[in-house]
């Protein structure tokens, strides 16, 4: 199906083929605006006994058909355009899709120096929506035969090889090429085709790389991802990754040739599409944002700061398949600190393992819900830490220093994530989107991310960001309309002064002035307390904070700040618990503090 560029889009059907579920949504133009109107889902059918992804797609679309009363399918075909045969309830203008079925896109990347071209290659692959299985570099501390063994055992979908600036070293990159050739790497899917390899390193080494790898891999050359030390050029290599994903990897997966044929725009890896919609929104509203998608197996974190996009995937942090790994990485104490009751270690460990082996079960009791939300806080926290370590400025770049920098020791490659400059957090994934009370989603993110100053929080209502990402490549207005109106559920604004103090001591005085005739709220926010004020989704309020002299609300210690804030389904949260957030080490005091906070925001039923 091809789409003439000038044809207007009124009715759009989009699917996301996930590892377990295929989700379809219908988007319709109503007046001047686009709205998401119906959704359907069905199990993904990539694996036996069906082994044809289009089965699940047809089933999910059939559910949309049933709910909407619109005829979309003609047997095993999607009817286009809308209004076919003169009936306005028949057909759609375009079908688009994303896919992460079969474990998504799994890549291995290699660079000359780990913290320079190795890191750039990793950022490039992550941004393209891949899971990075390993980063190989000349200085990664492994012996040559260990590297070769690793390449051999990994079986990625694709390899990205970079190294050297243009005109710089060729030896190191050729050394890596020789290791890859010696390993004779094989692709994950299919036995009969050559592994795709993208070379995006020093252009002077191209001929020699071709000699070494030309016959052993399906070699593709593109521009250097680090042409000079001071600049990354990730776009061309990312585009090549997407092309090869479609041509090689997807084409090997059962049913995808047909799916590619149906779609009116290239099928994108799910995380790449989510990244795209995040960038579109950040650009449109000039925001710094963090997005998180916490799933059963993995947690993806996206950020746009100062226009720079980054994405990371914590491949083994999740709340069902990988729940046990959250325990292993965070440690028992870090999880237990969020649980508002005492629990024996053995019982908690067994419960977590039982969730791992039966990942689709749901908490039936309040205790179980609280444990699951405690684990979610740690998974979110660890995934953001991981993201901060990769979303950095370029390492190895000489810094220009002024006289004012003399007293500040800053190295190159500092993280780009500045929580004080963060405007918006978008949460997605079952534990956040389907929390029984919305305030639970808000507090999970606040506890895990510890936002500073003024931050808006929201959740994705039904996980349609992938659909909207790919839609934005076809019609940006349709994508942003639906994102703002139907996808995002604004929870509200969190206001957090930075500083520490004893419980009960003055953190800041506040005055909240509402629109209309509502009586202003004012008072003292003590350390160790939370205050929640209802403020509806379409409401705004003026918040004036007068912090204690050692407390900062973004304008320096002791400096008062007045800002307009937006509301949400939860409202306005004033967080006086101090930053960094420290929970009492004494067990009884910790339980008392948690109970106090939970009651202050009505976190759980009594």
């Amino acid at each position, binding site marked *: 199906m091809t789409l003439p560029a000038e044809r207007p889009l009124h009715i759009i059907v989009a699917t996301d083929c996930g590892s377990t579920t295929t989700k379809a949504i219908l988007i319709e133009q109503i007046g001047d605006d686009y709205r998401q109107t119906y959704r359907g889902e069905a199990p993904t059918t990539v694996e036996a006994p069906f082994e044809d992804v289009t089965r699940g797609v047809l089933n999910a679309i059939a559910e949309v058909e049933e709910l909407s009363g619109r005829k979309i399918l003609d047997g095993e075909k999607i009817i286009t355009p809308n209004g076919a045969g003169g009936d306005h309830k028949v057909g759609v203008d375009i079908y688009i899709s994303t896919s992460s079925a079969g474990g998504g896109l799994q890549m291995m990347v290699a660079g000359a120096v780990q913290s320079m071209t190795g890191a750039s290659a990793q950022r490039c692959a992550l941004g393209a929506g891949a899971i990075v299985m390993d980063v190989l570099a000349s200085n990664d501390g492994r012996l040559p035969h260990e590297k070769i063994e690793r390449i051999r055992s990994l079986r990625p979908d694709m390899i990205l090889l970079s190294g050297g600036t243009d005109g710089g070293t060729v030896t190191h990159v050729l050394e890596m090429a020789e290791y890859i050739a010696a390993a004779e790497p094989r692709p994950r899917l299919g036995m009969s085709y050559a592994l795709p390899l993208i070379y995006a390193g020093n252009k002077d080494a191209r001929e020699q790389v071709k000699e070494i790898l030309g016959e052993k891999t399906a070699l593709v050359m593109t521009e250097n991802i680090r042409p000079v030390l001071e600049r990354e050029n990730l776009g061309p290599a990312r585009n090549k990754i997407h092309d090869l994903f479609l041509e090689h990897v997807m084409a090997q997966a059962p049913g995808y040739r047909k799916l590619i044929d149906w779609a009116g725009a290239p099928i994108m890896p799910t995380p790449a599409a989510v990244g795209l919609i995040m960038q579109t929104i950040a650009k449109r509203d000039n925001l710094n944002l963090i997005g998180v998608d916490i799933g059963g197996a993995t947690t993806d974190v996206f950020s746009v700061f100062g226009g720079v996009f980054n994405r990371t995937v914590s491949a083994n942090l999740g709340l069902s398949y990988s729940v*046990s790994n959250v325990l*292993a990485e965070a440690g028992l104490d870090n999880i237990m600190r969020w649980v508002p009751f005492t629990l024996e270690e053995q019982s908690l460990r067994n419960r977590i393992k039982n969730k791992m082996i039966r990942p689709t079960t*749901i908490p039936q009791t309040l205790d179980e819900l609280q444990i699951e939300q405690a684990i979610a806080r740690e998974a979110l926290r660890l995934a953001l830490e991981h993201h901060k370590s990769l979303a950095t400025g370029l390492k190895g770049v000489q810094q220009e220093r002024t006289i004012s920098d003399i007293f500040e020791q800053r190295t190159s490659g500092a993280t780009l994530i500045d929580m004080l400059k963060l405007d918006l957090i978008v949460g997605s994934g079952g534990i956040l989107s389907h929390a029984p009370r919305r305030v639970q989603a808000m507090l999970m993110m606040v506890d895990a991310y510890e936002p500073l100053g003024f931050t808006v929080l929201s959740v994705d209502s039904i996980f349609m960001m992938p659909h909207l990402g790919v839609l934005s490549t076809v019609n940006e207005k349709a994508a942003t309309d639906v994102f703002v109106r139907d996808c995002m559920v604004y929870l509200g604004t969190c206001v957090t002064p930075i500083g520490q103090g004893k419980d009960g001591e003055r953190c800041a005085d506040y005055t909240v002035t509402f629109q209309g005739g509502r009586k202003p709220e004012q008072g003292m926010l003590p350390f160790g307390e939370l205050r929640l004020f209802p403020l509806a989704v379409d409401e705004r309020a003026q918040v004036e904070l007068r912090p204690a002299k050692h407390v900062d609300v973004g304008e320096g210690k002791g400096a008062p700040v007045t800002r307009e804030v937006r509301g949400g389904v939860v409202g306005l949260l004033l967080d006086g618990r101090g930053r960094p957030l420290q929970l009492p080490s004494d067990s009884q005091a910790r339980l008392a503090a948690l109970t106090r906070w939970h009651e202050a925001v009505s976190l759980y039923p009594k």
Partner: protein
Amino acid sequence: MGHAYTPGLTVTERTIVRRRRLLPIPGTVEAQPDSRVQADTVVARAELAGKVHVVNVANLLGIAPDEIRDYLVKKEGDPVRLDEVIAEDKPFIKWFKTEVRSPIEGKLESVSTVTGQVLLREPPRSLDLLAYVDGTVVEVHPKQGVTVETDCSLVQGIFGIGGETWGNLVMGVKSSDETLTAGQLASSMKGRIVIGGAFLGAEAMHRARQIGVAGLVVGGIHDKDLRELLGYDLGVAITGTERVGFTLVLTEGFGAIPMAAKTFALLAAHAGQKASLSGATQIRAGVIRPEIIIPRRHAADQTTETGAAAPGAERSGIKIGDQVRIIRDPLFGRIGQVVALPPDLKQIETESRVRVLEVELAKGTRAVIPRANVEIIEG
């Protein structure tokens, strides 16, 4: 959602199981179509390329990379022995001669005049792929392997560790709610698959390893004992390659949980028979569960299809009267019968609105459980 429950684990007296036995790389298929194979029959064979070793000759001799061919005493493709000289320099005084020796036995694979490296490769290793179950070769996948079919009893576990093994079944306990203790493990159980009841502790695991038990099947273990056994905290349930001395299969989960009566009775009825056991578990898309396959004893039975369910038969959904296992607290591990399937969403204690079902437990007590929190005992 139509299928808001966990797919059940099969526990069946008779079924037909097919197992695809495929090599990781292309090789030769050894088994003939329609031939009978034993668990330890080699059905396919492949040659795994040897390990590669890198020697930077240019650095070792202190020469430029593009000069190394002048200093090599072996060519590409030449065999090399361990410690054999592969390159040397030619100083005026013989005393100062530097030699580069091979760290392995194998062949010289390639020489790079850009990096100055020489790659040496060890001889290839032969990889034998075994049949794993007693049965018949029903399909040959050229260069890749075969499909073996067997008429058997089948028990799927929920979680396991360790690879494929086989041996005769032996009962370690008398009832399904009993703990399998170290004292119940005798040296006569070497090479056998021992069936336990509700629980297996660290001491019994240690004893099983000492004896050389091939496999253990029990209701549950504690996570802390698993951690001790493996030496690390298992993060993701992808298993099958662990080497702890035996293969372990849990039928119920973590904790002390009596083995389902049906599972225990089936295993007990086949005590003394040969079974194949795999601990491999993968709980993600493409689920793999651990399994105990007990091929039928008489060869004549192998050709009789009567009574054996076709492989991969799918059930349609949950029904009133189905036996289910509750798989989440507060009634984790209890087994009951479905007595009602209300269609409407119901609010549970957490305030979530979910689809539920009503289960009758032993002694006539009833409980309302989210459908996501039960699994059907199939078979």
